């Protein structure tokens, strides 16, 4: 083991520096706070109300996205439903639409003067408050669960289920006692992302006029332009994320060994839908209609309205497209690459260090983006002035931040990889790279693909870190969407938003089509 441990140690160090640096920065800033003022800010009724709101919203969004993602993942992996590949891509893409754009889309549909009233002559619901935030965030985040569950379902060994059925268990009992326990790591990985996302979200909740703890962080940073108390409140969010990580780890523990079965999985038989055929199709088509087709249609309507469509052509559309794709590709390769050795060593290892190594990739996602960006400004300007405002720093920052998105699918894939298999390959004379290419790689590919898809989607629409850390004059599709939306120029914003969805669609389609070559 020691001879093979160095990539994990190296990645572990890099990741720890990347995540630990910003946390240290927040501590430095927060230590500058005046105790009395800090207490005034933190220990007031409002903080607890906001905490309650955050927990409530997290629970609702998790429930909603579970109800969407579970059947959707099952239908697209285990049934004879047609168009499963297409539905997989469509069920992933809601993640490509920036959250605030999605919120604006839903706001523009409802009400007296909404698109619903214009086109259908019906006054549609205009989402707002708790239910509005829960609704929009559910449609936005369920792909996290879907992709993780899908990767989990694909790695299940159908032999276990068949054995259970042969022992006389009914279909539901097989699900409850054989399938669900095995899906637990995948589910928890997706759920963790959903919850971390809800904790960090400000764009959607603020447009829905629902206040969570992140509203408090933003009001310090954005309204007060204050680094000290902003950092203090950001640490509260980090603590909340850390708590979630600890709880999640407890739920996971003990399940791992159960989940480890021999590899060499054969494809499960596709279940016939029978009399559930119509509802299944309605659901499988309905979800992407609501979560993707509808927002995209609204974007197209925006684009065709308004007078300024010509502005976009004259703008730097091509450059922004290239920049977005370049950065997102780089991060989609780097984030899984750096997370993998760490998870590999953690899952094979024992003790607190291994446990910490497995958790730490998530923490980057738990730091509010504004705080994370300012931390990297602070650190790079002081320690490495040469990298400040370079593309390298931006890619590194996004890599650290989005390791969390890669971790779930990679972890699911690794659970299915029995160490004995590698050892066998090694004993037959395969070198490390050869084992990776011929044995581990093919078995892991689906997990790696899902990880890359999630990271790509997150990076291609990323805004706050890009705005703070990108090189001078560097713009992306996402920064263009923002600059137009900010000024209520929706017609001009729409083509850039559509381009994000398009690019993401191509990337995810490519990955999904590749799956068969490996499996």
């Amino acid at each position, binding site marked *: 083991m020691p001879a093979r441990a160095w990539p994990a140690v190296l990645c572990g160090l890099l990741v720890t520096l990347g995540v630990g640096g910003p946390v240290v920065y927040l501590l430095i800033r927060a230590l500058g706070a005046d105790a009395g003022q800090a207490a005034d800010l933190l220990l007031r009724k409002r903080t607890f109300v906001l905490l309650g709101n955050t927990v409530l919203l997290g629970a609702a969004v998790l429930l909603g996205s579970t109800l969407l993602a579970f059947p959707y993942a099952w239908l697209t992996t285990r049934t004879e439903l047609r168009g499963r590949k297409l539905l997989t891509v469509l069920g992933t893409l809601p993640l490509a639409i920036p959250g605030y754009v999605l919120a604006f889309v839903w706001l523009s549909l409802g009400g007296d003067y909404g698109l619903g009233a214009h086109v259908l002559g019906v006054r549609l619901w205009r989402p707002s408050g708790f239910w509005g935030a829960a609704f929009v965030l559910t449609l936005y985040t369920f792909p996290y669960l879907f992709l993780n569950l899908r990767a989990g379902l694909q790695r299940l060994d159908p032999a276990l289920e068949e054995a259970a059925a042969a022992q006389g268990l009914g279909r539901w009992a097989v699900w409850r006692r054989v399938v669900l326990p095995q899906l637990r790591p995948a589910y928890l990985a997706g759920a963790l992302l959903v919850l971390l996302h809800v904790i960090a979200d400000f764009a959607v909740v603020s447009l829905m006029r629902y206040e969570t703890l992140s509203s408090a962080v933003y009001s310090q940073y954005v309204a007060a332009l204050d680094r000290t108390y902003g950092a203090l409140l950001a640490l509260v969010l980090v603590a909340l994320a850390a708590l979630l990580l600890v709880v999640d780890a407890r739920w996971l523990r003990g399940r791992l060994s159960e989940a480890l079965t021999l590899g060499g999985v054969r494809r499960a038989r596709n279940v016939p839908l029978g009399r559930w055929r119509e509802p299944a199709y309605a659901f499988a088509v309905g979800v992407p209609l609501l979560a993707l087709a509808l927002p995209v249609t609204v974007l197209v309507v925006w684009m065709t309205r308004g007078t300024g469509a010509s502005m976009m052509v004259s703008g730097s559309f091509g450059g922004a497209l290239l920049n977005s794709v370049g950065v997102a590709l780089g991060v989609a390769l780097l984030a899984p690459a750096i997370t993998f050795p760490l998870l590999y060593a953690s899952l094979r290892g024992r003790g607190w260090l291994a446990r910490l190594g497995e958790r730490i990739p998530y923490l980057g996602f738990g730091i509010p983006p504004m705080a994370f960006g300012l931390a990297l400004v602070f650190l790079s300007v002081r320690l490495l002035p040469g990298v400040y405002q370079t593309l390298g720093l931006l890619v590194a920052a996004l890599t650290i931040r989005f390791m969390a998105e890669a971790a779930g699918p990679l972890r699911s894939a690794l659970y299915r990889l029995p160490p004995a298999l590698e050892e066998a390959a090694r004993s037959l004379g395969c070198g490390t790279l050869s084992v990776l*290419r011929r044995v581990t790689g093919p078995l892991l590919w689906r997990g790696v693909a899902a990880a890359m898809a999630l990271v790509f989607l997150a990076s291609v629409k990323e805004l706050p870190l890009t705005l703070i850390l990108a090189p001078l004059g560097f713009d992306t599709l996402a920064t263009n969407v923002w600059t137009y939306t*900010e000024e209520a120029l929706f017609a001009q914003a729409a083509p850039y938003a559509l381009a994000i969805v398009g690019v993401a669609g191509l990337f995810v389609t490519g990955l999904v089509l590749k799956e068969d070559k490996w499996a």
Partner: protein
Amino acid sequence: MHLRIGLVLLLLVLLAAPGAVAAGPDVVIYSGRSKSLVAPLIVQLQRETGLKVEVRYGKTAALALTLQEEGARSPADLYWAQDAGALATLSRKGLLARLPEALLARVPAELRGAQGTWVGTSGRARVLAYSTRRIKPEELPKSVFDLTAPKWKGRVGWAPMNASFQAFVTAMRIHHGDEKTLAWLRAMKENGAKAYPKNTPILQALAAGEIDLGLPNHYYLLRFKAADKNFPVAQTTFAKGDIGNLLNVAGAGILKSSKRKEAAQRCLAFLLSPKAQQYFTSSVFEYPVIEGVIPNPSLLPLRQLREQAAPVDLGKLDGLPATLKMLREAGLL
């Protein structure tokens, strides 16, 4: 095979990353003003001054925070903010240099910082926006203080997190005192005022029927109207002298840490030139801060607006910390 391609790509990304630094610009502007609005002006600026300008576009607040973190090592020369509050904050933290008299003199005293560290570059008015479907002009309140009446319960939208709104609250504090302002904020909250994160959603909510009155800046409606003539919202001012009629500015200042102050001053001078000021009013629907600019016919004339507005010195709008404390006290932040 795939692995090898992946590794090669990875290497390329890593190698290409540091190469992104090109030959240095003459001036670096940190702009909180949107690229979608000011990019044409930057092109013109480069043509007129012959300077090579690089702009970092971002959110006014995030840039102000970034500048604080960068401190003396900041690559920025000029900071262009959407609101006076951010400029006043940076000035208070000692990050802005004093501007030459010649530049300051171009702008009326009430539209620049009291310490001479920043000038307004364009004006924006606080207005009363209303739904044309549900409100008759004669019903409109005459003062921002009337909005606490039972009649408007749950019908008013505002944006407590927005810098322009906070400037308005500061103005109210200067003009009417802290006690009255806090009482007003509390009464508004009591009366069910709906809090939006910024101005755009206020206008959308007015059209959608979620609210009937709103307190935004003046130019957003003009953009909605440009895209859709029938957009069912109109705006007006309160009665003459009411604090609700504040005239606010977007402005710019030069960083103390800048080593290219002379070039930065030339940029600032351009932003105050008749050509740039004409662009602000004709294309961005804002108010010029200098005389001799042809007014935009879709705007209420500046002279009339200034007559309507309560007399508040924007240079003194430096009370942001106290305003925020009050907003927190009122349970709005």
